[in-house]
């Protein structure tokens, strides 16, 4: 199921993060006070205060040289313990992988998709277990062999130990990733069949915000629902005032593509691609598809320039090229006028496009990502290495989580814990989110049980008896727990960017482009958001415990 378009909102994300951090810190402090009271009596609060002061000092006084030493140690350890044997597995996979991948009679973009997905998935699922293993075993082994004793009896602070370990494992992962991704790139470029090479590109779409007008021309929050349960697309009725309105921001002339027509000078045009759904209420003219028309609008300047109508296409995108100089009939002066797309129409970088259906009583279905401006293509490497960056961020997050877990529990337990987080965060996160938002039908655990027992289907409301109301309240308790879990478990979907590249798109920086969930900036911030509390947690976990192996 496709997620709805949610703009990434930095401010609210930051606020939410602070809130969770604050609540977490308060709970931790409360426990600290209770425990210190049990241990030291009335002197307890002083002890807590001392730990906080010492902690702040340790974090402010971090020595890059010490952290560097520990990082280097970690890298050396990994190399001398032959952790890099993973390359062998990788190499073998690729030697034989190419034989089974695609049939050469597949469509070119499908072939590319298979190859690119294979490479990126292979890299991801080879590197994650390696760093998971390394990061979860490192510190527990260090404690068990007591080599950590010799380190912490030097002026090395415990946060430096944690940080050094984390950076070390990240460095090892980076080395592995760099080699693998370069190898993968070369392999791809050489292995993709000649006929499909042209599909190794990175399209750069620009998406706009979508608004609607109903058939009377009033503003609407949604398009018309034609009875589809899946509400992804809204519909516009033909030959009415119904419109779907896209607004694009920050456009510049550099967003135009160069178009070469036979026997002419190349010209720069704005390339718009669309793919709408036709919904016929009667057969109509079956020799052609439904007709749609885009109108460029600048409400402030009272400009509305209709473009040539086009037929919907069932396969592939319809490409509309907009000239920079636009000629239109001016109703007021009854003359033809010419204006400039960027100087006049979108002088502040904002361009509005209204789409309507021209066939009476027929409908056209549209969703936000169904129409986009396509900027000049980037080389394939751009998207490829950006999605490698996504894998890198994911790997770094695994290291952070693994090292943190390993300060609390022994290696195997830490591994299971981190692995569990990874599974929960990559496969069940969207389910978790739906559950928490209450968009899964049939209610909570007990309610569902009763429905099964009463043979009630999940759509029917339960009778508002006292029993049922109490049950609904009880069912909310685990939901609250789940909400907390869904906030704390990292969403690994945010880091998976291979889908963009596999489908021939560039990886966006600030905002995810539907139907996918990931973009670089949110992934970077996600990593940072977890790294800070994890570092703090791991520091106190190492500091407040005796480093004897038990």
């Amino acid at each position, binding site marked *: 199921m496709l997620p709805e378009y949610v703009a990434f909102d930095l401010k609210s994300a930051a606020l939410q993060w602070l809130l969770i951090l604050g609540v977490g810190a308060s709970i931790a402090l409360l426990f600290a006070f209770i425990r210190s009271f049990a241990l030291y009596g009335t002197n307890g609060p002083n002890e807590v205060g001392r730990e906080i002061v*010492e902690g702040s000092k*340790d974090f402010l006084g971090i*020595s890059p*040289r*010490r952290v*560097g*030493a520990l990082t*280097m*140690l970690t890298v*050396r*350890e990994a190399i*001398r*313990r032959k952790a890099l044997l993973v390359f062998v597995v990788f190499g073998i996979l690729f030697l034989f992988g190419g034989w089974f991948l695609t049939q050469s009679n597949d469509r070119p973009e499908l072939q590319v998709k298979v190859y690119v997905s294979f490479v990126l998935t292979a890299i991801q699922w080879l590197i994650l277990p390696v760093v998971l293993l390394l990061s979860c075993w490192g510190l527990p082994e260090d404690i068990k*062999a*007591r*080599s*950590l*004793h*010799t*380190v*912490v*009896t*030097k*002026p*090395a*602070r415990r946060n430096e130990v944690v940080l050094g370990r984390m950076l070390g494992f990240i460095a090892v992962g980076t080395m592995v990733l760099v080699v693998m991704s370069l190898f993968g790139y070369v392999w791809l470029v050489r292995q993709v069949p000649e006929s499909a090479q042209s599909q190794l590109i990175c399209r750069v779409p620009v998406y706009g915000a979508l608004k609607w007008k109903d058939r009377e021309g009033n503003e609407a929050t949604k398009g018309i629902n034609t009875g589809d349960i899946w509400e992804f697309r809204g519909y516009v009725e033909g030959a009415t005032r119904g419109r779907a309105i896209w607004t694009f921001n920050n456009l510049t002339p550099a967003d135009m593509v160069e178009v070469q027509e036979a026997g002419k000078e190349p010209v720069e045009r704005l390339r718009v691609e669309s793919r709408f759904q036709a919904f016929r209420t009667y057969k109509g003219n079956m020799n052609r598809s439904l007709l749609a028309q885009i109108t460029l609008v600048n409400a402030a300047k009272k400009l509305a320039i209709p473009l040539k109508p086009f037929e919907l296409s069932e396969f592939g995108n319809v490409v509309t090229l907009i000239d920079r100089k636009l000629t239109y009939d001016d109703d007021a002066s009854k003359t033809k006028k010419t204006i400039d797309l960027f100087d006049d129409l979108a002088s502040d970088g904002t361009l509005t496009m209204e789409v309507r259906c021209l066939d009476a009583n027929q409908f056209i279905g549209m969703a936000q990502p169904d129409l986009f401006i396509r900027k000049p293509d980037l080389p394939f490497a751009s998207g490829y290495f950006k999605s490698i960056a996504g894998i890198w961020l994911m790997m770094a997050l695994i290291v952070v989580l693994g090292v943190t877990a390993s300060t609390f529990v022994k290696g195997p337990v830490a591994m299971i814990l981190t692995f569990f987080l990874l599974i929960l965060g990559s496969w069940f996160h969207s389910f978790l989110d739906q559950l928490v938002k209450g968009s899964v039908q049939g209610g909570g655990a007990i309610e569902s049980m009763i429905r099964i027992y009463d043979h009630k289907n999940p759509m029917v409301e339960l009778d508002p008896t006292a029993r049922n109301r109490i049950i609904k309240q009880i069912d909310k308790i685990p939901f609250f727990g789940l909400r907390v879990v869904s906030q704390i478990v990292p969403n690994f979907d945010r880091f998976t960017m291979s889908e963009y590249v596999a489908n021939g798109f560039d990886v966006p920086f600030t905002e995810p482009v539907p139907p996918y969930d990931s973009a670089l900036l949110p992934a970077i911030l996600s990593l940072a958001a977890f790294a800070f509390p994890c570092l703090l947690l791991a520091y106190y976990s190492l500091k407040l415990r*005796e*480093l*004897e192996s*038990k």
Partner: protein
Amino acid sequence: MPAEPVIQIRNLSKIYRDFWGRKKVRALNSLSLDIHKGEVFGLLGPNGSGKTTTLKLLLGLLFPTEGEISMFGKPASDVSKNERIGYLPEESYLYRFLNAEETLDFYGRLFDMPAATRKERANKLIELVGLQGARRRQLKEYSKGMTRRIGLAQALINEPELVMLDEPTSGLDPIGSREMKDLILKLKDQGKTVLMCSHFLADVQDVCDRIAILYQGELKVLGKVDELLKEQDITQIRTSRLSPEAIREIEGVIARHGAKVDGVDHPTASLEDLFLKVVHESRERPGRRFMDSPAVDAKGA
């Protein structure tokens, strides 16, 4: 009495607990000690008497169940005190995949030393502990004594004011342990403080100014080595190459003064006698402080 205690221990107790917080062992019971600047202090006791536990408590590796510790006037949990301390653990807990040079460089970095200083000290120390021939070999290939030596080198990398050595001579060959003792005396000459644990009583007797004997976590004896070992009513005369006639003559002289010759033999390691006596007595009469020494000054604190 020298002023300025480098280490102050007051009523220190340690109980090891298991995961569920149940008491397992009482490893140390109400220990009070002062160790002063510039002295070589020996911590003795049979296996499992709490020597290593004491060192680990001092270093902040373990947390005391009761009591207080002050090192250079700071609590044991303060990491900044480590700048002035060198520690040789019971077994050298080092990274076995590093070689000697890398090991010293690594620990030098932990003291935030610049590269030039690290290099210079590493060279000096490798020479000092006699590992020139093995400086590029990984520690996992080292013999026990070699591991001990590199362990000692890392403990001295920061030119510490206080050196804590947990059984420094274990695993060393006779030459090595002689060198170790010389080194300890040299450190003392440089005005450094040394705290060591050992089973080799002869070594302790040779180098220590003061000793403490622990038995099952309790302090049994504390005092200056020479005072503890001086037995007032025994006079020992040592000569060399004495003929049987001369011995007979001397016996005659002693008899004339109304004394009796107990025996003529070569002197034994007298600290060993003391040690065995203390351990024996402690076993017989548990809970009794065996011998009060003039050096105990901790009572008022």
